[in-house]
């Protein structure tokens, strides 16, 4: 953004590409810290204003970093394939609020039919595997020769 000097015009941005995506942190973060993937053009001030004005979330501190996307993988033409870079923001909430990223795929309770079916399926797979392995008393020796 252009530097503001006294007497200069108010900065106006039209149709900015500002987005914020809350993500589950890869390493455990303190209770008041939320991790976001944000647009590369957003600054700490932008992130704070975004959360405070649109979502009314009290923000105490924002820290950002840019994650470099790797460029090592190669496609079938041996061209390097770049994974895109993205900016990560760590937002510390104000007024003592805490946030824990929810478990988006909880284990569903299974009814008796599905549980019985799962048990049956696992037992069948075990029997098939045992048939393939052959007699354990032979110690792994194949049975296509001998008595």
């Amino acid at each position, binding site marked *: 953004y252009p530097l503001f000097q006294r007497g200069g015009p108010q900065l106006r941005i039209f149709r900015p590409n500002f987005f914020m995506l809350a993500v589950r942190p890869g*390493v455990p*973060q*303190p209770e008041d810290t939320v991790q976001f993937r944000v647009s590369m053009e957003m600054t700490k001030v932008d992130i704070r204003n975004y959360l405070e004005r649109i979502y009314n979330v009290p923000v*105490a*501190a924002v820290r950002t970093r840019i994650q470099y996307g790797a460029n090592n993988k190669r496609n079938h033409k041996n061209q390097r394939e770049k994974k895109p870079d993205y900016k990560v923001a760590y937002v510390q909430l104000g007024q003592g609020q805490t946030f824990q990223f929810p478990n988006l795929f909880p284990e569903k309770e299974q009814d008796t039919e599905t549980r019985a079916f799962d048990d049956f399926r696992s037992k069948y797979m075990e029997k098939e595997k045992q048939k393939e392995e052959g007699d354990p008393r032979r110690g792994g020796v194949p049975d296509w020769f001998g008595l």
Partner: protein
Amino acid sequence: MAALGARWLLRPGRRCFSQTEPTHPSPASGPLYPPVVASITAKSKAAQQRRVERFKQQVHAAATVEEKLRLYGKLQRPKYMVYPQTFALNADRWYRSFTNTVFVPGVPPPVAAGAAPEAGGDPGMGAPAAATTSGAAISPEPAAGALPSLDMGELRSLACDALLQESFYQNKKRPFLYRDQEHTPGPFLTQLVSTLAAFLCGHNPLLAASSLDLKPEVNYYWHHGEEVVAHGHRKGRVDPVRFQIDDKPHLQIRVPKQLPEVVPLDSNLGDVPVINHKPSKLPLFKKQYENKVYIGSKVADPCCYGHTQFHLIPDRLKRERLIKARLQDQIEVVYRSNGIASLFAWTAAQAMYQGFWSEADVTRPFVSQAVVTDGKYFAFFCYQLNTLALTAETIKNNPRKNICWGTESKPLYGVVEDGNVKDFNDEVLLHLVRFLLNRPKEL
């Protein structure tokens, strides 16, 4: 003879040597073989243990304190830089967990009840004051009674003079950007402390033998906890987490005799917060540089114990800025984290100067005081160091905790207008005076 001997040896069968029978070893001569211990240079856990033990023996056997400090901080590795004056949120909780400190609000009873009764010349005042020093409930009365010869008016006039001289009488240019604190409150604090210390020398002989440092350096290096190295050629090894505090208080008073202990060495006044996250989440950053342990003067200085430190809050952490950023609850956190970190570094460095370290824990508590201010608001802290053993092995069976007493920040004055200081707060000045008058019981 030689040929005969050779043939005799070549013949197989019975071999009898011509020597006399070996004498039985005398039972009192000790073990025949050297002790079977692990190697020193092997790549094994036993060898690592032996190297660690060797290092500890070396430090224990060091002849002088300088040699001990040199060996203690010889190995340089990346370490977390802990700043006492930090913008990090809730930093005082993290600092308490790093330094194994319990925070007790309020000032400890011996300091609240005033200086020792010998301060006043009145024996009649001395008896009730001595009887009531144990109970802090009626502290204001014996405090006023224990200092009968102290003129509150004179002290107030001293403080107001210093304040007016710096802010009103002297013609100063406008301060440069972010240099407000060193423009007015800094010189005011220096002037106030030096005049008060000089004035109170008669009441406290310890102050007469003290040394006042201007902008000294205080450094301390310690290990606490363990982590696994993430990157580099040492990846996968378990390392202690290293910390270093490099502090520059505004003023410091060092004395030749130690302040008395506030509570016994093994007292338990609360709990230390346990934080299971890495210190880098605070945020705290790592750097590798010299591991320095320093109290403000070198080891040979006779004034090797600490009395009081005075800290000035920098511009970026001022009250107005925090209020504008809607972080009102962090105002007290700033004062507390400054008090805890600076005092821990100072007392621990004093203990190291006496030869104690994490393997040789302190046998007597080290007490120091600090005043954290931003020119107008004053917060008082008192720290008792009970243990230096904070490394992963030594902290396992260590029941001792360090204790920090602290107050909330209170204003010393209201406004300065037209050569008058409005709403001067006598309590804060009295607190400051009591801090300066604190001394060991013998004096």
